[in-house]
């Protein structure tokens, strides 16, 4: 025993007597807990004593030294049955599963790959491939201690050298990683030995754990990736997650199977730290929103991400289904080109922001499954600064005043004009039906302000091409685990014209972003985030619209399935199905 009750001899003697009574069976387990707590013994210590002594779980006062008590066994949480293929419907087409070179990570990323660290739902960093980590006293070197003996699915060693290769590839401009901006403070990564990884940074960089923990920093076998080139992520995948790749049929499905040699996880919040329960997972892309719910209700799917918002109420009423909904770390926003029309004038951007009735948009388009956003970070973000809500509220009269102050007057057709030029602009969307609907509502609301909006839709690739060349305005959705990171990427003047497609150049905002990137402590990071959000709400590098929610629906027999807001997906290693034989 390491702890004495109340630190006194009398208390210790009392505890010893209690333990004797427990062993002798004259004190029940429940009574022992209460009496030991009353003399100041901690519950973890009591738990250890009970585990050492054994004892029944009942509270009938009889007590015995029967079956040994446990000191806690997470696998008991829901002792899963192995077997089965989880057939999951997915609401978007799959992208190439190469962490270094993708702009979106699909659910397979969390089955196939591991990161060096990861985030728990409280946004605390926890071990995954690295067991320990920390910065040097001057903040210039972050050292990660890597678990020994890890390997990729192919058998290739997963050590500090393999990880250093991945991190150095991310910061290599030729590699085309979309997250290179977040890694800007990183100078290089060095493998000191097989289990010691050093990330050298140019200045204090408290945000590094955020950057290395996203899905885009998952560890891939770089040698195989570079050997296969563009075929990597399509034909072969080599990670270290609990599932290994089987096939990807573009536009249709992705299949993975349990990795039988999985060495086990050290992520503290995983229920199952051993091999996965599921034999296979097959994610099927269900393009038609109308058929998603139907396929689930017909039993063709075991789980589904992203039913149509209008179907959620019906699914909640289905006696066989469980519905989970989380706020996405995502934002729908409208980019206004600072170099076109009058959008460089803050008053014009503010007028647009005040002319949008966000609650009506949420109610009408997503049936309430989302939250209006008044700043650059969605309300579902844990570091959301609600002070932004003082800005950009729906106020059409104020919007009109701002346009008048900016020199725009209503013409004969009620469209604003200035120096003979009409306030008429093109709003670019993709061909995605939701994007088009959103643009259509924005068009209608801005018409009330006297702006003529012409909606133009392109396929996804052409849309990006157009944004690169420069368009009047566009709607876009970002989704990122640490929302401030992507906020920098899409609004920092250094990121113009890609992916700061609106070409925002705001000195005060850039300064706020620098503070965030140079923060030395989590407290400084949080303060900088709050400041940057306020500056953004005032200066409007883009016009926020709303933060969406995501729904996941499962058959009742799908167990241990709990998606988490920051990474969007469930942890498939925990999931099992209660409809398997045996």
């Amino acid at each position: 025993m390491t702890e004495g009750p109340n630190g006194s001899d009398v208390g210790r003697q009392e505890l010893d007597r209690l333990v004797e009574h427990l062993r002798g069976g004259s004190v029940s387990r429940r009574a022992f807990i209460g009496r030991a707590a009353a003399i100041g013994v901690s519950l973890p210590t009591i738990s250890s004593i009970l585990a050492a002594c054994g004892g029944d779980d009942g509270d009938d006062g009889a007590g015995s030294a029967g079956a040994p008590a446990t000191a806690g066994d997470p696998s008991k949480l829901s002792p899963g049955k192995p077997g089965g293929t989880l057939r999951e419907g997915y609401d978007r087409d799959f992208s190439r599963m190469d962490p270094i070179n993708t702009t979106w990570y699909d659910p397979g990323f969390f089955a196939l790959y591991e990161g060096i660290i990861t985030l728990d739902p409280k946004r605390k960093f926890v071990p995954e491939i690295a067991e320990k980590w920390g910065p040097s006293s001057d903040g210039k070197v972050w050292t990660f201690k890597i678990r020994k003996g890890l390997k990729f699915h192919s058998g290739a060693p997963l050590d500090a050298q393999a990880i250093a290769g991945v991190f150095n590839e991310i910061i290599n401009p030729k590699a085309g990683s979309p997250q290179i901006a977040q890694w800007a403070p990183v100078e290089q990564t060095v493998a000191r030995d097989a289990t010691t990884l050093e990330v050298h940074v140019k200045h204090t960089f408290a945000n590094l754990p955020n950057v290395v923990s996203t899905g885009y920093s998952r560890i891939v076998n770089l040698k195989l990736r570079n050997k296969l080139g563009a075929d990597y992520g399509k034909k072969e995948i080599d990670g270290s997650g609990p599932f290994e790749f089987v096939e990807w049929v573009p536009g249709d499905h992705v299949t993975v199977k349990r990795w039988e040699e999985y060495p086990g996880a050290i992520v503290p919040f995983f229920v199952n730290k051993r091999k996965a329960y599921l034999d296979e997972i097959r994610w099927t892309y269900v393009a038609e929103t109308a058929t998603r719910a139907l396929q689930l209700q017909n039993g063709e799917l075991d789980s589904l991400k992203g039913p149509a918002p209008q179907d959620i109420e019906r699914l909640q009423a289905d006696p066989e289904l469980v519905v989970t909904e989380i706020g996405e770390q995502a934002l729908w926003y409208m980019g206004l080109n600072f170099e076109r029309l009058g959008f460089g004038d803050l008053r014009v951007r503010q007028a647009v922001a005040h002319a949008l009735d966000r609650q009506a948009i949420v109610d009408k388009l997503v049936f309430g499954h989302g939250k209006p956003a008044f700043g650059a970070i969605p309300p579902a973000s844990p570091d959301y600064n609600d002070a932004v809500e003082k800005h950009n509220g729906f106020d059409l009269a104020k919007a009109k005043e701002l346009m008048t102050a900016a020199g725009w007057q209503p013409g004969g057709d009620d469209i604003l004009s200035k120096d003979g030029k009409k306030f008429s602009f093109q709003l670019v969307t993709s061909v995605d039906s939701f994007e088009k609907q959103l643009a259509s509502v924005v068009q209608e609301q801005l018409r009330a302000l006297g702006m003529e909006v012409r909606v133009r839709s392109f396929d996804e690739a052409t849309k990006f091409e157009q944004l690169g060349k420069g368009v009047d305005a566009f709607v876009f959705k970002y989704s990122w685990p640490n929302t401030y990171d992507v906020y920098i990427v899409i609004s920092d003047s250094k990121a113009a014209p890609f992916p700061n497609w609106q070409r925002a150049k705001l000195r005060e905002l850039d300064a706020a972003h620098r503070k965030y990137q140079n923060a030395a402590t989590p407290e400084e990071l949080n303060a900088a985030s709050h400041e940057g959000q306020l500056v953004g709400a005032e200066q409007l590098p883009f016009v926020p619209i709303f933060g969406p929610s995501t729904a996941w629906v499962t058959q009742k027999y799908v167990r241990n399935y709990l998606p988490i807001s920051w990474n969007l997906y469930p942890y498939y290693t925990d999931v099992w199905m209660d409809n398997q034989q045996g």
Partner: protein
Amino acid sequence: MAALASHDPTSGFSEAAQELDLFAGGPAGLLVVPGDSVDELMLWRTLLERMESLGFSGLLSGAPGAVEFLRSLGVERVCVVAAGARAEHALHLAAEEQVDALILISPRIRCGVAADLLRSLRIPRLLVAGSDPRDVDAVRQLDAQSFGNVALRFFPSPDAGHRLLDGEVGPLVGETVSLFAGRVLGLGNAPTTQQSGSALEEVMP
């Protein structure tokens, strides 16, 4: 329960600990704010016993000082849980004490009470409801006023309040409470988090 001392909210607990519903696990624990019915108490006891076997500590009490008392017993990370009308009290506890997570099952919270409390909360929250439209609506209204990490889960059951822990979906609701608490607090006796810099001396060469 014995009367609690007014000058030190935890001292009364210590004196009364023998009569309390205490569950001994690791440094992660649940504080359940129960209603008065025997049925409800029995359901919570069953859940806390199960969670004790997983390594969670627990206390069944809504009295002032309960959070502090749990902490004084070595419980470092606390999730507050309540159902039905007791959700309002649990929400107050979560907003006023430094707890780590909040789970509300089929919550009934008076209009006007929630808004200010929810605005200040950023801890992970799980809101659970059955399929009764009033409960679904209540959960959605709470969510609409919340910021940060909130998960909603709806089970196919007409039951409400603590009764969701019973009946056909009872095991699923219990599993969800355990899973969420485990995700947020860490499971069993495992350390949940490793803050940056915490292992510096061991790590740095």
